[in-house]
């Protein structure tokens, strides 16, 4: 990829997406950067602390109240001062949702109740406020929309309200069963409108979209990535998988997109932005809209590169590349959420359904991706996956003529360095091999010598007769002339 498109790219640090506690799962701004599990633990601790403090406060308040009452009995003058002080304190405590001792004890006595546990799941008050504002806005829009349909609108609103009131009692059911309930509700409402209300099909579709928006905005926090499923685990698995495949190039996937072209690079960035943005939407239809927008940008990128409209043979590899490059957060959770709670007719038919199916194909392909899929040898694939090496940069010949000379030279140098590095590694390996061979050889020789010594031990036999002096038999030694004496000459 060019330096330009590298600079244009979206830089979302993965650490920002993960849980603050470092457990490896995704964090969520709604849970102050924690994952659902850690948030529950943190919230539970905070709540226990709060309950403890509230107990102490309640006792203190009760003591003060008794003292105030006692002092009011003894002196009328002092009473007003003490009481005003008490009132002031009481007012201060009101801001912490503590009004009277009676209310306090009734609240704390339910500490372990089911309701308390459910509250612990909910986000902090500020987030709740934010959510309720959005929910209220959506509800208002929904009511305003239904007003235009008069009697049918009233009927739809009544059914929707009943459904939303019934759903909290179904939270103990599995997510698949909750999904089934929602799908049944969609189907029943649509059928009733068509048969009883005689509503035209195009209007039914519009109403169904609004119903989905209304109910899913309310149910989102309970049904998106629920704890009863392994969605979070799947998210982490696909995220790790995509990270491990960071080395995959467009050429390997046969992607017909040239990111050197600025317009194409822009389209790629927009496509990545859209697929990442999907996670921020609450309504399945809005998530689908993000996928569709992403797909349109991909088609544009291919069209600009090839100068002709793209086919499915071009589109799917490019979508896979975009997913690999973007590594969208909570990808599996989003796919599952759309599958479970989107209007079914949207998923299997229509443009949104087509692009969503392609995304599912892309994710399935990434999960199964192997050496053959990328036209690589198994050896190369394993090396790239383990991070030992990465595919060589493009040769300088493939650079467009208008590319900066400095950049060309830099990549050329980097290429040379990588080649030198490979050669050095090869030499080091050979040297180590030689050293090992030498050690093995010396060890081998020593072993052979040892074996021979053991096989043929050296025996030193004692002599049969004692050794005599060499000259013992020379009896005529004494007849020898005396040794010569040195002569000194004057001269």
């Amino acid at each position, binding site marked *: 990829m060019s330096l330009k498109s590298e600079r244009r790219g979206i830089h979302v640090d993965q650490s920002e997406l993960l849980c603050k506690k470092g457990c490896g799962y995704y964090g969520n701004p709604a849970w102050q950067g924690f994952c659902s599990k850690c948030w529950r633990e943190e919230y539970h601790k905070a709540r226990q602390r709060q309950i403890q403090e509230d107990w102490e406060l309640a006792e203190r308040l009760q003591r003060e109240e008794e003292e105030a009452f006692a002092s009011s009995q003894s002196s009328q003058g002092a009473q007003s001062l003490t009481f005003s002080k008490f009132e002031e304190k009481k007012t201060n405590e009101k801001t912490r949702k503590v009004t009277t001792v009676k209310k306090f004890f009734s609240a704390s006595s339910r500490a372990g109740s089911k309701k308390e546990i459910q509250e612990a799941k909910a986000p902090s008050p500020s987030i709740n406020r934010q959510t309720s504002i959005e929910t209220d806005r959506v509800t208002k829009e929904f009511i305003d929309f239904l007003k235009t349909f008069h009697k049918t609108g009233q009927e739809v609103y009544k059914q929707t309200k009943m459904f939303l009131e019934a759903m909290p009692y179904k939270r103990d059911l599995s997510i698949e069963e909750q999904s089934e309930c929602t799908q049944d509700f969609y189907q029943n409402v649509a059928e009733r409108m068509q048969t009883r209300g005689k509503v035209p099909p195009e209007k039914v579709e519009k109403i169904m979209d609004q119903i989905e928006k209304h109910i899913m905005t309310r149910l989102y926090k309970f049904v998106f990535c629920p704890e009863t499923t392994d969605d979070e685990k799947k998210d982490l698995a696909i995220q790790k998988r995509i990270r491990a495949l960071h080395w995959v190039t467009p050429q390997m996937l046969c992607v017909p997109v040239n990111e050197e072209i600025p317009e194409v690079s822009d389209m790629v960035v927009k496509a990545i932005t859209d697929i990442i943005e999907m996670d921020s939407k609450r309504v399945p239809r809005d998530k689908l809209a993000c996928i569709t927008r992403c797909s349109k940008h991909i088609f544009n990128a291919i069209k600009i590169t090839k100068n002709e409209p793209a*086919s499915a043979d071009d*589109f799917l*590899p490019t979508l896979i590349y975009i997913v690999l490059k973007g590594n969208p957060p909570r990808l599996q959770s989003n*796919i599952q959420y759309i*599958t*479970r709670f989107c209007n079914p007719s949207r998923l*299997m038919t229509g443009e949104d359904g*087509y692009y969503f*199916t392609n995304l599912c194909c892309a994710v399935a392909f990434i999960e199964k991706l192997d050496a053959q*899929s990328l036209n690589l040898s198994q050896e190369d694939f394993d090396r790239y996956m383990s991070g030992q090496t990465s595919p060589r940069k493009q040769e300088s010949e493939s650079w467009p003529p208008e590319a900066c000379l400095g950049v060309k030279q830099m990549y050329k140098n980097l290429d040379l360095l990588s080649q030198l590095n490979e050669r050095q590694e090869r030499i080091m390996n050979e040297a180590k091999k030689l050293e090992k061979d030498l050690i093995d050889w010396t060890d081998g020789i020593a072993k052979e010598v040892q074996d021979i010594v053991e096989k043929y031990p050296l025996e030193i036999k004692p002599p049969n007769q004692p050794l005599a002096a060499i000259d013992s038999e020379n009896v005529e030694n004494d007849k020898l002339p005396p040794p010569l004496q040195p002569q000194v000459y004057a001269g």
Partner: protein
Amino acid sequence: MAQAAGLPQASTASGQPYVSKLVLLGSSSVGKTSLALRYMKQDFSNVLPTVGCAFFTKVLDLGSSSLKLEIWDTAGQEKYQSVCHLYFRGANAALLVYDITRKDSFHKAQQWLEDLEKEFQPGEVVVMLVGNKTDLGEEREVTFQEGKEFAESKSLLFMETSAKLNYQVSEIFNTVAQELLQRAGDTGSSRPQEGEAVALNQEPPIRQRQCCAR
């Protein structure tokens, strides 16, 4: 998206056309996209998609009733075949396209059929075998008879076409549409059923109902 807006939208009794999903299956470069493009192009030059040629819709007027045909193009490369069963969900019809000048593409079409058979019960979808590129007759590797015999053995519809010469392109889509309407009529339903929600990234469930069974 190509929307054939200019066509008269004859309605069914309920006042709306049947919606049918047709998937184009076959190896890379057999002419799947070309067939879809040619079909969309011949009546209206303005309905061609401005961006991509992968998803099209067209409303067909078939006398007493009308049918909205959604054409889903698929990636034909070998490496994507393992994930392409995801395209089949909720499909009412499939075109198995092969290139008459490439025997391997004919064998590949047979593999696609096997994948379809795993997903659907017999008669649940309308399947047509299409031999494309008849304009390259002198390079033919698959005879008309071979194609016809295979189609008959598997109870498939069969036709040979040329997207380049616009030979029998409309016919394949119209024949499939007629068959879909006929089957919908035979089942006695006023409209084809909406597909139930399915997990698109999981293994296919055992199908309980038959959308378009004879």
